[in-house]
């Protein structure tokens, strides 16, 4: 019997096996223009990062990256086709060309960047793995987790980092591995495992999906580095540039105080950085085959990074995640986008 996962894997393997050699110089920009939409790989539904809202529209920090690319390339942030992928499916879907951007809380690691024929384009969210437990277990630190059963999603860096942590601390654990986040949450709620583990941002998202969010708490320890970012295929440097600079445009817009609200007023700004971002002084999109208003479209339709953050995962959202290390470099955080000039 085949399930969706097998079909995706087999189809991708088939595509790589049989497809001709013609498209050595892939032109994703041209394909996107003629299709009229960006093919964007997202999660199966992770609130705050990528999940459909009540009206079926995809929302989230990761979704906004795809919307920014669509705004830059097509002038319309809504021109995106979303493909929902679980952790196991995601890279094959990108390799085989089913999607052109993977924006699905994916950790940037050497293996993924260098052996899969893929390239990471930047970091949308600096994260780290944490543990969520039931309050009534009466545990206050991760060092008390010896012998615990732990629900983990299959095909994630979590699987690796949790094993490392327990080995380094000479503790044992039972990995209970499921394909989807729905199943990991289900397993946690039913008591199949004592601990639910994932990137802490995602734990916050999964916690609000629990029947009783207050029954669970997230332990203070962060046990790994998980820089999450968008991924594209190798071999199309221009497309890589477009995805990379779409995110940088959002970060630069925040840095120079350009928001979706004030962007039209900012068009007359005297500030040379603002003028360059908004295409009022030269066309910095030209090198990527884009119009001068590429970044204007991003900011006016999607907003700057800070707006997207607050709306999706920050204090304006149910997740209530602090900016912390995800603030800009001049606000005590890690986000430092190269200048647009």
């Amino acid at each position, binding site marked *: 019997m085949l399930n969706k996962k097998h079909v995706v894997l087999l189809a991708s393997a088939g595509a790589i096996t049989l497809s001709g*050699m013609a498209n050595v110089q892939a032109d994703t920009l041209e394909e996107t223009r003629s299709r009229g939409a960006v093919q964007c790989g997202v999660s199966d539904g992770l609130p705050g990062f990528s999940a459909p809202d009540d009206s079926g529209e995809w929302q989230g920090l990761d979704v906004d990256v795809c919307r920014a690319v669509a705004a830059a390339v097509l002038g319309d942030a809504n021109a995106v086709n979303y493909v929902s992928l679980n952790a196991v499916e995601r890279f*094959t879907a990108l390799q085989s060309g089913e999607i052109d951007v993977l924006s699905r809380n994916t950790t940037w690691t050497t293996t993924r960047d260098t052996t899969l024929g893929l390239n990471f384009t930047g970091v949308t969210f600096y994260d780290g793995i944490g543990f969520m437990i039931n309050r009534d277990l009466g545990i206050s630190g991760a060092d008390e987790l010896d012998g615990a059963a732990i629900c983990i999603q299959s095909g994630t860096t979590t699987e690796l980092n949790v094993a490392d942590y327990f080995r380094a601390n000479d503790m044992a654990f039972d*990995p209970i591995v499921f394909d989807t986040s729905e199943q990991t949450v289900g*397993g946690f709620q039913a008591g199949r495992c*004592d601990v639910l583990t994932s990137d802490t941002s995602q734990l916050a998202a999964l916690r609000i999906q629990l029947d009783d969010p207050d029954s669970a708490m997230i332990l203070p320890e962060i046990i790994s580095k998980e820089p999450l970012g968008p991924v594209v295929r190798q071999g199309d440097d221009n497309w890589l540039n477009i995805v990379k600079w779409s995110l940088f445009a959002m970060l630069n817009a925040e840095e120079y105080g350009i928001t979706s609200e004030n962007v039209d007023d900012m068009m007359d700004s005297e500030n040379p950085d603002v003028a360059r971002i908004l295409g009022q002084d030269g066309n910095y999109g030209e090198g990527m085959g884009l119009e001068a208003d590429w970044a204007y479209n991003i900011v006016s339709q999607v907003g700057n990074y800070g707006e997207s953050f607050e709306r999706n995962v920050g204090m304006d959202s149910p997740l209530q995640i602090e900016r912390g290390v995800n603030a800009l470099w001049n606000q005590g955080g890690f986000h430092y986008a190269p200048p647009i000039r």
Partner: protein
Amino acid sequence: MSVRPNARPMGHKPPFWRDRAKRALIFQVLVIAAVAAFLLYIVGNTQQNLASRGITTGFGFLDNTAGFGIVQSLIDYSSQSTYGRTFFVGLLNTLLVGGLGVLAATLIGFIVGIARLSPNWLIAKLAAAYIETFRNIPLLLQIFFWYFAVLRTLPGARDSLSFGEVFFLNVRGLYLPEPLFESGFGLIPLAFGVAIAASIALIVWNKRRHEATGKRLPAYWLSFALILGLPLLVLVASGVPITWDVPELRGFNFRGGVTVIPEFLALWLALSIYTASFIAEIVRSGIQAISHGQTEAAQALSLPRNLILRLVVIPQAMRVIIPPLTSQYLNLIKNSSLATAIGYPDLVSVFAGTTLNQTGQAIEVIAMTMAVYLSISLTVSMFMNWFNARVALVER
């Protein structure tokens, strides 16, 4: 009779394209060459495509450290083991659920199939209801039923159902005591081996005697008693050199003993019960395929009922039963790959799931996985064909 002007002289061979046998041979060679060329093309093309996309290829990854844990393993495994070892861990888990599934499905299937033909109205109807229910509900739903509706609703570790404080059942699984063998236990397998050898000798001797003198002993019952009794006798005589490691609630969970995880239980139950409903129908049709005249003829010889079944009906029915039974076994093993839907760590979930994703080597991993299912299936078929040839009617 007119002679055609350029008729070939007698004894001269026709050109090869007129020779039917040679023509057939040529076509077969051509087809094989075309298939081989196509395969070569695919392999070459794949390698080129992967290289041009910067995707690492080859089987070198099998020696790298896996780095992730697996909840159930029949061999030594830790996160420091290699990806190659995850393959064997997954494979053995597949064989475990497949093998135990085949056993249980056969047992249930034969019982239900025979019950379906029972003259007792209630038994026959119950068997029919079993078959119609489980045959007509998709397997995946049955797996979900056992996993989510039954096993997920069990109490947590601290309120486990306890059976005599030795067996425990909770949402984490079934906890059984594990026998630990002390020194001196070696005698028991030895006794077991001796009993088996003696039983074979007994059966052979009994058969010869039966053919020569017409007398016989209930050899099968005797050997059964021997195989069970002798090791037991030695066990008692040597002062029972076994201690039991009884599971005990410590910290989060039970420790010690053997844990049967609920993912295994759900998959095994669903596969066995589902496949048994098909096997039951196969058994029923096999028995019904034997013409009633055979039974009547045997009755006319005043053979007792159990001998009619054993000597006349079953041997002939087996001939009809075994080929479709083989495909049910193959189905069961292949269906076990649904394991990934509930997170049982079988070959597809561990190797074609986690390992594939951590290494990204989809083609190699999928090829190895497909090769495994193919070889398991071919092995089962071969065995069943051999078995079928043994029990098949020798037409005289």
